């Protein structure tokens, strides 16, 4: 039949063998966004931008570095977030171009409004930068709404926040940061095939026993 069927059959045969074989899916646009980000992270030379101008990229990089800052562990900058966003805006997030075009000047204007000496967000101190971003963040704390449709991000800051999180935490083998920086930070192992025990609390678990049996064991 179709190629899809052959691929499926191949996948299933592979997975039914003694050790499960993991085949990552193919998402050309996202993979190329990730490859782009990796090239950028590894290369000392300036990487070609697809949508943002170098000046815009510098500002976006500065903002994302406050959203997920670099401290004892790597942050948005080390994960190449700005390059992911740039490629995303040229491909699968094309609808958000307008938000960026209109939003970035507002951030610059706010920077100048709050700190008259500032021409650009990127020139501000980290404390000043946080203050500028807080002035855009009406919600401030997490929205605590799982299992519900999440409203699309409405403001530029919300959009950029969401894109930063996505770029930082998307599966490194399915289009995310190929170095897996974000997953390392949150402690999510990169593999997709695991064996128990999984964590601390199930390490010495003896297996399920009926109450009467386990009571006997205790007494």
């Amino acid at each position, binding site marked *: 039949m179709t190629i*899809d069927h052959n691929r*499926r059959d191949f996948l299933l045969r592979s997975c039914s063998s003694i050790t499960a074989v993991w085949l990552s899916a193919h998402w050309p646009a*996202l993979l190329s966004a990730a490859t782009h980000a990796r090239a950028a992270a590894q290369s000392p030379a300036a990487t070609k931008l697809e949508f943002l101008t170098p000046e815009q990229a510098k500002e976006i990089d500065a903002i994302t570095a406050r959203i*997920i800052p670099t401290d004892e562990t790597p942050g948005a900058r080390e994960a190449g977030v700005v390059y992911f966003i740039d490629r995303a805006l040229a491909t699968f997030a094309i609808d958000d171009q307008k938000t960026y075009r209109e939003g970035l000047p507002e951030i610059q204007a706010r920077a100048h409004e709050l700190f008259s000496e500032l021409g650009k967000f990127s020139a501000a101190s980290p404390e000043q930068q946080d203050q500028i971003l807080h002035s855009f963040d009406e*919600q401030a704390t997490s929205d605590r709404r799982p299992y519900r449709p999440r409203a699309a991000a409405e403001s530029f800051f919300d959009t950029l926040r969401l894109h930063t999180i996505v770029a930082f935490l998307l599966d490194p083998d399915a289009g995310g940061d190929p170095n897996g920086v974000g997953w390392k930070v*949150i402690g999510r192992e990169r593999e*997709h095939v695991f064996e128990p025990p*999984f964590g601390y609390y199930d390490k010495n678990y003896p297996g*399920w026993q009926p109450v009467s049996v386990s009571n006997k064991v205790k007494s």
Partner: protein
Amino acid sequence: MTPEQPKYKTSDEVDFVVVGSGAAGGIIAKELSENGFRVVVLEQGPYLTEADFTHNEVKILSEDLLTNHPKLQPNTFRKTPDEKAKQQRAVVYGRLVGGTSVHFTANFWRLHEIDFVERTKLGPISGTGFSDWPITYADLEPYYTKVEWEIGVSGLAGASPFDPPRSKPYPMPPLPTKASGVIFEQAARKLGWNPFPAPMAILSQPRPGRSACVNCGFCLAFGCEVGAKSSSLASAIRMAEKTGRCEIRPNSYVHRIALDANGRATGALYFDAQRNAHLQKAKAVVISANGAETPRLLLLSANKQFPNGLANSSGLVGKYLMLNSGAIAVGVFDQPLNDYKGFAVSRILHDFYELDPHKVGFYGGGGLDARFDQTPIGFATGGLPPGTPRWGKEFKSALAHNFTRTMEVMSHGTSLAVESNSFSLDPELKDAWGLPALRLTYKDHPDDLKLATWLNARALELLDAAGAQKKWSFPIEEQQFAVHLLGTCRMGNDAKTSVVNADHRTHDVKNLFLCDGSSLVTSGRGQPTMTIEALAFRAADRIRDLAKRGELNA
């Protein structure tokens, strides 16, 4: 090797057209084609396979790769019939071959005996359509067993003192115990409750062409890349295809059931991927389009003979919608659980399945489960404790600490059938095909909210007993987003108070059958898919017998 699927002509009158390829449609197609009937399954979504699935959260969660798309098929919502509904996303279901069973969490609870006869035991509840089923647990038991063995369910028979009787053990042992399961089990036992291994429609042992679970942790909202999750796609659909008599026709959006002058169904009218209109002729029609789309299709099929919608002489098509009540309590622990590994749930308890209304002051009952079903981006945007900053250093450190140390205790419970809770056609909004959009009307019965609050208090007690470092819960609010789609074409013996009879045959059209979540009379205590699948096995038996006796041609 899967034999080549037949390609039936639309003008070729097949024995059955089945609308929908999900939990119910897949099984009905399998059973009828295995019994020698020629079957066409019309599925509105695409035919994706394991090779198309991915752990890419953007594709799955933001781009609705596996589900109905709010731009193509927008919805409206209102709480009560006197309000004008406003446009918002109100329902989510799987829109692909395999339906919602592709992306579900795979909790597979049987109903208990009480679920079928609770109205008789407790008496009427005013303002509701609380009713007994026309069948009992004993009628459905052989089919529950069939689901477990044929579709693939892991679990441990006899582990729960509250379990209903069963004719056979599970075909395979439970999945491994996650850290959340160990914590839940130890705390629950401290409280004198009876935790037990969760029955899951996920393989703990391989089956031909399907891998055992590899514990990747991407269950909820994702398709399983190794065929371990027992979706219709991984199980029933493949078996139907093997017969060589069943054609799965994806990208086929059914918008009307065709009828002849005598009021008999003659087939299904649908749009193909290019939006060309077709009529697939059939001797009989089974609609398994889910508890939202099945009533919508009946309402869309109104004509002169059936001005209020097809099979709607009772006026109940789309009504008595039940979504299941629920709550989520969250605990953070000192040490890593790494509960992102594995699958969603490894322990549950049913001690509160049947609460005494005289003692607690409301109707209802439910179960608790131990779970973590969040993926990294979802967790970062919705899984942190209230008050955590949304960005910056504190956000990052909360994320880094909590992702591996969080678990949830989720409550699942009854919903009472209220007539005004419904799916109907929006009078103004249209979908991308120009068809009236789905309108959800829903306001939880006060008892449902009391139950959710009561169960959540037990969940928090459990997290306390477990020694959680931090605990909180999500606010219990009236629902306005539908996932479990139950009761909208209810089953019953009386044509005035139900839409289908105990054979899933509509009271009004003799060769039209409905089987999916819409058939349920009561909501159960959550996790309805197991019951939907058992009903589908049973319905297929009844339909086969009627067809073999020639009763569908009469």
